[in-house]
């Protein structure tokens, strides 16, 4: 094809952004699951990603087969769900949302310390055999890694969707998400449902942790990247699974475009108008997602797909 290089480069940037976006979506998914079922804004989701990945990589380094390591980690995440429900949430029923939110920050601190206490604070390399070559379409480079990651994310979302739609537990989960009291009155055990959503969120965290760990190494900064899931969430709406995915894609693409095209253009502008020549606006990625979400919420306070907020006196 005869497109100029700049166009190909633009496509590559957009595609890169979309792939980054799927990663944000994976973390945001975990948030949405827990928020829908229990109304808890789970700040610990980012740390759960790190904690799951630390366990996984730790077992592999002990010489276990990745599948076995994965199975043990899943068991640990389920045990964690039971512990969170039994030790924390059960005692905080009927407290204000901010108190529940604070308690998840407490859980986050605990897990961070606990994970590093057991497995050490070093960066762990993780290789799970995801192909690492690149394809070329025209002048555009596509990392095979990115593609496999997007496929894994898509499979996970499809599996979750099927789980929610076709299984008995899934129906119960949707009922709880719709209306806590109505669900209770038809005999759905709330505590059990909470354990299940925390366990599912833990497994989602494990998948996200494996993919991110394979890309960046398993280290503490994973939990900081996971904070980016928050603007993704509010962009998509707290209660919407499709919102989490589309929000992730928008934010991933937006921040890559801002970093590659926006920042240099702005630098030029500042240099031309003020005459200062040693200025750099790199690192726009750090805050772009939050500011985009903030501006967006001005116009749609409940996010793209969130439930309409109706207030009554």
């Amino acid at each position, binding site marked *: 094809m005869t497109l100029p290089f700049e166009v190909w480069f633009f496509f590559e940037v957009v595609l890169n952004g979309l792939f980054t976006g799927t990663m944000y979506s994976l973390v945001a998914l975990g948030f949405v699951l827990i928020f829908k079922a229990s109304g808890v804004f789970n700040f610990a989701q980012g740390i759960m990603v790190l904690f799951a990945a630390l366990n996984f990589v730790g077992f592999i380094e002990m010489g276990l087969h990745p599948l076995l390591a994965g199975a043990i980690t899943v068991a640990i995440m389920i045990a964690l769900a039971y512990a969170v429900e039994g030790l924390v949430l059960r005692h905080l029923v009927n407290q204000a949302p901010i108190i529940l939110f604070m308690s998840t920050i407490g859980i986050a601190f605990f897990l961070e*310390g606990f994970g590093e206490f057991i497995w050490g604070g070093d960066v762990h390399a993780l290789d799970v055999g995801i192909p690492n070559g690149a394809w070329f379409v025209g002048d555009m480079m596509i990392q095979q890694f990115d593609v496999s990651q997007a496929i894994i994310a898509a499979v996970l979302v499809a599996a979750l969707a099927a789980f929610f739609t076709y299984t008995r537990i899934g129906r119960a989960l949707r009922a709880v998400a719709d209306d806590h009291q109505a669900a209770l009155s038809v005999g759905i055990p709330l505590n059990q449902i909470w354990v299940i959503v925390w366990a599912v969120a833990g497994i989602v965290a494990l998948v996200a942790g494996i993919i991110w760990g394979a890309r960046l190494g398993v280290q503490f900064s994973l939990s900081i990247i996971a904070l980016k899931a928050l603007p993704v969430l509010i962009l998509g709406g707290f209660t919407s699974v499709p919102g989490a995915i589309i929000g992730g894609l928008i934010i991933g693409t937006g921040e890559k475009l801002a970093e590659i095209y926006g920042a240099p253009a702005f630098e030029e502008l500042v240099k031309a108008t003020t005459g200062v020549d040693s200025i750099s606006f790199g690192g726009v990625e750090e805050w772009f997602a939050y500011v985009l979400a903030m501006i967006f919420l001005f116009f749609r306070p409940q996010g793209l797909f969130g439930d309409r907020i109706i207030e009554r006196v």
Partner: protein
Amino acid sequence: MFYREAGIFKTSYAADQALFRIPIDKLFVIGLIAFAFIVIPMIGNEYWLGSILIPTLILSIAALGLNILTGYCGQLSLGTGAFMAAGAFMAYKFATNLEGMPIILVILLGGLSAAAIGVAFGLPSLRIKGFYLAVTTLAAQFFLLWLFQKVPWFVNYSMSGVPTAPPREAFGFLVTGAEASPTARYIFVLGFTVVLGLLASNLVRGRIGRMWMAIRDMDIAAELIGIKPLQTKLSAFAVSSFYCGVAGALWSFCYINTVEASAFDINRSFTVLFMVIIGGLGSILGAFLGAFFIFLLPIFLNSAPGWFGLSIASETIAHVEFMTFGALIVFFLIVEPAGLARLWGITKEKLRLWPFPY
């Protein structure tokens, strides 16, 4: 027996609405302030004054600020660190570009600049509520810190990007910068803390404080009885950011002695939020109790093994510290969600009946 209201008669409305309605409360607070101003500088050594009391007092100011916004006006904010940074950087600009300006004025101007920025980032609160708002305050946190790091104007084009706090005098004593004695810096910070603490406790029991609380309890109902949400919410953001800005300026000028953005990262915001929650939402006393508890706890955890003759690798201690910290927060929330201030309230109730409880 010793602490009771019986027998205290008020003969005027002013006495009935005084800040301290019971003489023993007033005596206690005055005694505490006098102790802090006179006795502590005499008995405290450099470590206690410089590394423990100064930062704790400064963080108390920040916790007061966040408590006004979150505890009294009900707007959850995760951007405290950014507003502190705004105060620190603007105070630095005022101090270096306007030679001879009194340092107290410099710090207050830093606070006022932070207030202006806080109002700008408070604007979304008119449309956005709850956790949505909390995430938008993260925008302030990340954007402002990025701005202070990337725009060299804020640090006067200094080569290292981390300028030192300029030495300045107040009342003939050197109070800022690395050369100032810890005692002088301590007295300076304590002065700010006492004045701002008294100001806050008067603000929240006055007209504006009642407006904040009405908005917190139910904003629609508050609007219906004639409280304007725009002015009320923005005033809470302004006052809160002013407190945070003053705290940030003091942190840079009197504690770490450098003006750098990394001192005000997201962890700072969370620390202050912990102080407010553990101390007690919507309580002035709670802000102080929380600041002391949260700041002293890691120091205690660090040195506790040493007292029992145990030697543990410092890395392990750091991890255990995180675990204990997290577990304690959860524990406190379960046992007393209203915080340390509520525990103090319960103690006072008990004292009232002591030694003859029924």
